[in-house]
């Protein structure tokens, strides 16, 4: 069967993958190249391509040649160009960890049912990062060879340990006089404990704030109970104060979606529009921290999340066409992976995995973890994902048995299921999530929420890119380019 084709044709195959999309279209098979090029083809075209029965010179043939699905031996060598494309897509591998999370305290005044990081009571002791550990963590961070570094303060509620935050920022700034890295500071906070002193310090060091806004007051307050039952009002007040002191874009917000949230996609989006945000992150609940224990009440099947997401995305596309700029951040990351030669660099969408290679977490207990999710598992009694102590050199931490295990199960192109998947060039590997959900860092794709989520979203986006009108395409491109709808011309990306 193989011999017939290979002896008579003038072209050879390059590695590619395919997927049937079960769409109402003649061309319902998506083929993707190793470097992330894609084309929609019909089943007869797929068979002709695979068994080398194509007529050279046809438009389809030329398309396949240009997008590196085939090559003509002796006539053109695709390797140099493909290697350059592959290198661009995996560019993140040439840099060490860029995201450094400092868990300065586990204390928090909120008692959120879905809390992903767990917390300790306000007056709890033994839950703050010590000065010696903080200083060592700064040393570890500068051992990374990344030119761009993000210092993110997490909790609990990091503003409850603001003096440690201040110390760390000052050490980093002082050290950076010599290092000359490009450094960004971010505090992830409820904004509950903001003071003018904190805002002045943030202004001095151009610190960004990231907060949580789950939707309208009723939803936000139900998700985030406090003794005074005014979490929503306090969050809005904090957003207003940050914007007043530091500028409108100095604060961004994240949404956590509980089962209750899934019933009100429009209300959540309307709240973000009302508060003047330019992006919204519609992320599903993660199986970590307290969220896992409350899963019976708060969790939902990923299929429900996908239905919610599609409805929310449709509403966002509608609003954007009316001149409101509000992008969905995960869709924007996926679009970058699909429509550009570059990777978004987002941790969950990296292969090899971003855990440890892209991010490091310096926990309040003086231990280092490969991702925020890995340290959340600690609060569920799982210590296995610890890289080591903050006092060990970075090179030693990155050679730890845990890193070896994560990397050996964190290359999507080699994993069962992923290795045959047409989306693998746009997706990533998440061994920590699979370990958390299935007790195995490789996991089984058929039962993987991570896989179902990314598969569902990528299928939906590819469908939009192929089937929708120019107005929708323009919105998607405006998210990709971070420009307003009015500034974007016709798309032209149809595969």
């Amino acid at each position, binding site marked *: 069967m193989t011999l017939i084709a290979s002896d008579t044709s003038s072209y050879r195959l390059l590695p590619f*993958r395919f997927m049937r999309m079960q769409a109402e279209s003649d061309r319902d098979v998506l083929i993707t190249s*190793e470097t992330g090029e894609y084309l929609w083809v019909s089943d007869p075209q797929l068979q002709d391509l695979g068994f080398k029965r194509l007529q050279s010179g046809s438009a389809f043939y030329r398309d396949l040649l240009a997008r590196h699905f085939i090559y003509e031996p002796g006539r053109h060598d695709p390797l140099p160009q493909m290697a350059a494309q592959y290198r661009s897509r995996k560019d993140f*591998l040439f840099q060490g960890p860029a995201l450094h999370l400092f868990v300065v305290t586990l204390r928090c005044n909120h008692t959120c049912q879905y809390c992903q990081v767990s917390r300790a009571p306000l007056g709890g002791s033994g839950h703050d990062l010590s000065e010696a550990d903080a200083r060592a963590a700064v040393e570890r961070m500068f051992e990374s060879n990344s030119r761009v570094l993000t210092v993110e303060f997490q909790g609990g509620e990091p503003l409850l340990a603001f003096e440690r935050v201040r110390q760390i920022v000052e050490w980093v700034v002082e050290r950076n006089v010599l290092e000359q890295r490009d450094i960004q500071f971010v505090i992830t906070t409820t904004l509950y404990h903001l003071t003018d002193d904190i805002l002045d310090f943030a202004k001095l060091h151009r610190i960004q704030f990231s907060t949580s806004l789950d939707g309208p007051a009723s939803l936000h307050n139900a998700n985030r109970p406090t003794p005074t039952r005014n979490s929503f009002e306090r969050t809005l007040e904090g957003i207003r104060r940050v914007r007043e002191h530091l500028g409108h874009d100095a604060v961004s917000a994240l949404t956590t979606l509980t089962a209750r949230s899934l019933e009100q996609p429009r209300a959540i989006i309307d709240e973000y529009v009302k508060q003047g945000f330019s992006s919204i992150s519609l992320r599903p609940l993660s199986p970590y921290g307290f969220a896992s224990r409350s899963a019976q009440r708060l969790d939902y099947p990923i299929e429900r999340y996908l239905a919610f997401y599609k409805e929310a995305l449709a509403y966002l596309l509608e609003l954007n066409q009316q001149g409101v700029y509000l992008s969905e951040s995960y869709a924007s990351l996926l679009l970058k992976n699909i429509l550009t030669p570059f990777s978004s660099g987002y941790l969950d969408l990296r292969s090899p995995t971003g855990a440890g290679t892209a991010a490091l977490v310096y926990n309040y207990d003086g231990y280092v973890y490969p991702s925020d999710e890995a340290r959340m598992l600690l609060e569920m009694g799982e210590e296995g994902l610890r890289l080591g102590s903050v006092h060990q050199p970075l090179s030693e931490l990155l050679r730890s048995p845990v890193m070896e295990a994560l990397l050996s199960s964190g290359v999507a192109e080699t994993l069962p299921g992923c290795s045959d998947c047409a989306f693998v060039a746009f997706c990533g590997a998440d061994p920590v999530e699979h370990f958390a959900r299935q007790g195995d860092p490789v996991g*089984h794709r058929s039962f993987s929420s991570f896989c179902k989520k990314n598969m569902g979203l990528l299928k939906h986006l590819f469908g939009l890119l192929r089937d929708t009108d120019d107005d929708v395409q323009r919105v998607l491109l405006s998210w990709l380019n971070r420009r307003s709808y009015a500034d974007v011309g016709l798309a032209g990306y149809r595969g």
Partner: protein
Amino acid sequence: MNWPVIMHVCEAAYPLGVVQRAAYSLADTLAIEVSVEPGQVKLSIFPSQDQLTLPSARVRPLVLQHLNDFALRNHINRETAGLREVLARAALTGCGLPQ
């Protein structure tokens, strides 16, 4: 429908690796027991959920579609053997974790 559904396929057209990959990809719908017999591979197909809504008439076509797709993937992989590694080596020279 009477379970299991039994299918026999020719090992030359559908090598064991192809059958195993097809079975893996269908695991959320169907539980497939794979056994090798002289010159052929036997598939014993069960529902993987109690309330499988897949119409019985669609089980064989669904499995066959997956078998054919994985056979084609196998063919593509054989045709392009080694190219992925050459490409990755050419592209990623010099990368690595900081030491």
